[in-house]
């Protein structure tokens, strides 16, 4: 269980680092780890007397300031008022395209997933989209997605939004919008660059020396295990409970 907690803590702390410098991050439904990462960033900024961070957790009442209904997140994003958001995918390809619809021939897919949600829109409009997918396997990270819910790069239209990084259970990749692909930034111990090659179905750039993803420091961990889990319990009670029990 504590290995599971360590795994989650490194993801949460990495997300907080990826969000550094933003003013407003929104988090979609069913995303406890991204929500915890956003809360960790906010708490850290507050602790260090740095500029405040707004967070909008969909499905939360306490950590969501929207008052104009379901449309407000999308309007906010259209105006450039949302700096960061999280998207996942049943499939993600090497060009950063994501598939939330299903595998095989549309519509009677081999595997059908829930649907595209707001991805086709938000990917265009939110500057720092963090792709977050815990399962790191060749069935998720494919050379080409079967259905493009949202495309990463569209030279035919101007856009401010797109992928910034890809975080998985095993590694962190940067996305290069000029090159249109991913580059391995770091691996989470005990994984090695060879594990990443073996479990990634798309091509990506790999530096000669691949760093280890840094472990959260003591101060970060005490914030995370205290204040953050308390805040998170409102929207994700089961997740917060499991994390506390592992302590």
């Amino acid at each position, binding site marked *: 269980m504590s290995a599971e907690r360590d795994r989650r803590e490194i993801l949460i702390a990495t997300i907080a680092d990826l969000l550094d410098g933003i003013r407003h991050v929104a988090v979609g*439904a*069913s995303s406890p780890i991204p929500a915890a990462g956003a809360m960790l960033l906010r708490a850290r900024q507050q602790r260090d007397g740095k500029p405040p961070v707004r967070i909008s957790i969909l*499905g939360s*009442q306490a950590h969501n300031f*929207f*008052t*104009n*209904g*379901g*449309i*407000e997140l*999308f309007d906010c994003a*259209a105006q450039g008022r949302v700096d960061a958001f999280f998207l996942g995918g049943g499939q993600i390809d090497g060009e950063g395209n994501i598939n*939330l*619809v*299903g595998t095989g021939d*549309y*519509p*009677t*897919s081999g595997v*059908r*997933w*829930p*649907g*595209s*949600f*707001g*991805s*086709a*829109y*938000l*990917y*265009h*409009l939110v500057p720092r989209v963090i792709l977050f997918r815990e399962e790191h396997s060749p069935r998720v990270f494919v050379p080409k997605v079967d*259905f*493009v*819910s*949202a*495309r990463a*790069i*569209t030279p*035919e*239209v*101007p*856009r401010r*939004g797109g992928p910034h990084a890809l975080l998985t259970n095993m590694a962190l990749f940067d996305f290069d919008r000029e090159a249109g692909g991913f580059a391995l930034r770091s691996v989470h111990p005990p994984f090695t660059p060879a594990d990443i090659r073996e479990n990634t179905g798309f091509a990506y750039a790999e530096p000669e020396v691949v760093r280890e993803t840094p472990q959260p420091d003591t101060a970060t961990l005490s914030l995370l295990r205290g204040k953050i889990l308390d805040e998170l319990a409102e929207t994700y009670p*089961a997740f917060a409970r499991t994390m506390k029990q592992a302590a």
Partner: protein
Amino acid sequence: MTEIVALEALATRVTSGQSLAIPVDGSGVAMAATAALLEAGIRDLKLICVPISGLQADLLIGAGAIASLETSAVSLGEAGAAPRFTAGVKTGAFALRDSTCPAIFAGLLAAQKGVPFMPIAGIIGSDLLNVRPDWQVIDSPVGEARKVVVVPAISPDVALFHAPEADRAGNVRIGRHRELADLAYASKRTLVTVERIVDRNLLESEDSAAGVLPSLYVDTIAVAARGAWPLALWDEYPADEAEIARYAGMARSDEGFRAYLSTFLSHRKQVA
């Protein structure tokens, strides 16, 4: 004038073959009314999820009440995939119109404003444009020269949702859940179930009026206590997670779904 009727009478205001717009889980979903609709044998609905759905859509799909489905996603959230939706897509049990959340809001907004379409940012590059021939990419006719997606107006025959309270004139308190107003503005008729009818006038003060959908947009109201169960109703009760998980398990098979549906319908009758 807004009529206040019994739940069964409200359910008769939806007829087979109509388009029905429903809100996202947790926003105020009329589950008791959904049971009443299924009890009445509703068929061939054109369901429009604003902008996604979960248990409600899955129940309607499983019961064979849906002819077509427009949605950005169907999911039971923490309880996982929506089993009857997933199975129905594979067998082609209904016509599927995959969307993306803001496109559904944009379609409703076009209807609200009485115009045939609404431009919307983003989307270009998505395969949704291939499977939605009713969406078009145009050169913007005004302003900055660029491509823009336009989506047709969505004007549902009926909107159906659940809220905590209405007053005797038919004004409905929706709090900050403005998406419920978006539904009502765009729909030809709006049916609302509420936990209770209150004697005070909800439009009396600025404080209360700000969170109210005026009766002008509300055709029919019925009282349904715990009418969103097992889903949450904001400020009133949380979701019954155990019940939703029970559904998620049972609905994996068609037989399991039938058994769940039967107890769900009889449970609703006992409450009524």
